[in-house]
């Protein structure tokens, strides 16, 4: 399925929310999932991460990067922050690379010998580069869509009338 980048990012974030991730971690996963698919990395890493909710990398990876900015390290790595710069290393996985690329700060991530060396410039914003289309495989899209559905509230007669605020007459 060919999608816009925003569709992929939104779908992934909502899926994480549906799987039980808190909102901020779900948003971070949305950005990381987009970077992941743009880079052509494995769907399995995303599916496994969603399957591991409400625990797993969707909760732990944001903490690992946050720890680097604080210079405190984390269970999965170590690092040092020096005000506007943060450096550190953490075990290499496809998803770790994707989270590095999704950081809102200028970030470099260099894999070497099973570890990733991360450098972040905290004073320098970074954006995910524009892409015209993103391919998302059907099994992954299906898994995400099913998780999104967990957060949807079925309509009732009362909510149909009042939830969106529309009355019965809206023509002239």
């Amino acid at each position, binding site marked *: 399925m060919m999608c*816009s980048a925003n569709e992929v990012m939104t779908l992934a974030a909502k899926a994480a929310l549906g799987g039980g991730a*808190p909102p901020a971690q779900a948003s971070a996963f949305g950005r990381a999932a987009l970077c992941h698919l743009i880079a052509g990395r494995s769907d399995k890493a995303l599916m496994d991460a969603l399957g591991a909710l409400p625990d797993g990398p969707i909760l732990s990876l944001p903490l690992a990067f946050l720890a680097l900015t604080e210079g405190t390290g984390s269970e999965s790595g170590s690092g040092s922050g020096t005000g506007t710069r943060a450096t550190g290393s953490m075990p290499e996985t496809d998803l770790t690379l994707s989270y590095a690329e999704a950081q809102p700060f200028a970030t470099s991530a260099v894999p070497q010998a099973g570890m990733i060396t991360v450098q972040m410039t905290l004073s320098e914003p970074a954006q*995910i580069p524009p892409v015209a289309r993103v391919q998302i495989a059907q099994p992954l899209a299906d898994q995400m869509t099913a998780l999104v559905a967990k*957060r949807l509230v079925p309509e009732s007669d009362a909510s149909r009338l009042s*939830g969106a605020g529309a009355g019965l007459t809206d*023509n002239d």
Partner: protein
Amino acid sequence: MKDDVIPPQTDLRSPPQVMRLARMGAMFPTRLSFLRSLMRRLAAENVTVTRPVWQMSEDGFGHAVYSLDLGGHVYSLVAVSTDLPPELRTDRVIATAWDSAYVLYDGVPDQEEIARITAAAPKQEAARFTERDLILSRANKSVRLFAHVVEALRAGRQPDRDMIRDVGYLMRTTAVYGNGKFGIADRNLIDSRTGLEGPFAAEMLTVWLIRHFTHDLVEHTGKGRLDPQLKRHLGIGNSTGLGMAPFLVNHPVLLNNWMLVRETALARVRAIDRLEGAQQDRLHQLAARAATHLAEWNVPDPAHQARIDALRGDWDRVRARFDFGVQRPLDHAMTSIQHASFDVQELTAAMFIEPFGDLVDGLADCMGDPFGGFCPPVGKLQALRDLIETQFTWALTPDYDAPENCGQFWYVSEAKQEPRLGLRFEEDGAALESPLDIGRRIKALHVALLSEQGSLAEFLAAHPEHALAVSRVQMGARYPYAEIQDNLIATSCLPIDMLRCKLSFFGASKFDPKSDRWTRITLCQGAPLAGDLRDNADDWWLPVFQP
């Protein structure tokens, strides 16, 4: 700010003063509103609109293509007009068919692309689109006015002027989708292009072209020409519901930049030391125009009409006392009305900005969010606590366990996957609440922080549910106007205030609330027609009927 020399300014009105729903719900469009900025750009670029395709039946059903060149790129509006059975016509988001459907296309579509779009656009959300499709929209006729204008033109006369004045549009859009929805282009694919850099610029361009199409369609169907003055007063209507409300909460940096720019503009004009006689005359003229606009603003809802009536009286009293001959006249006037209604204060603020484009127009370049919510981490827990206690007292005040302070909850409906607002103690679904309860979350974070030491990462490892509140508090240090400083789940929260704030930035006028959750508005009323861009393209703040 991009200005080479930054003009002097007074202190800004503070976020606790400005970022309250009641005041945001009283906002008026300004010359910094997106439609106004777009019109100035179109005029500056000498844009010409062409109509390379017009395949329309005598009754006005078929398709058309409009093209223009802006900043070196050609954009085309593909418009599809459909014969819609009356029983299917509804402005609600649950609709599945509309009188007309639109795509703003990147380039000039060939026959194959036109065929694709004319097949897909009427299906709206049920279809898929491509990266060449920049904006997707649809509109329904104001049946009463459209039919009347057609009948009048066919009879060889102009339509009833009172009806034109009172309705103000031939069609109203019920959705204008951008930024990747349903497969259309992501905004970041086009936001560096000249003319489309500003927020919602592509959407506003689409709306303006749709208005142009509605004029052509009614003239084609009526087989006559509308008086240009009447035509200029015919804007494009819009029905907007709750779907728009969470945008302001979910895009805090954009909200900050919009409000900061508007407040900076106001602070700049308040710092003007003396006004020339012509400038004073201009302000009095605008005040009189505003009075006429208010007199022409009539809505069916009794409560809102009463509010407009009160504003008419207040405005006449306030403007009679404006003395622009004193030192710092605009600062003096704003201070003199600080105890007036929010409606008066915000109307005055919008009016004071209007004549001073040379001081404020450059600020419009600062209304986007080119860095995607960039915010350096605050880091220490104590710093977070301090930020909350200095900048988020509004969030700490309510007792969120009290029923009146948590009586509503935001959610996403299964039927259309659109935002909704429910009553917590009367409806199911609160367990699936959307995280728009920013104030409650920040207070919970503050409570949790009181007993914590160590790093933020350690804190969030133990309390992952507080990560959203942490991010919002961190933003507070850099973006002071990012948060609506009200409890958005209180029983008293009125989403219509959020809608009006956002729509005023679009350039909307004639707010016509149908409930506290959806409203009709008019866009582009008084805006230049395609052929008028070279003449007087920028003087249409609070338009009045001038045939």
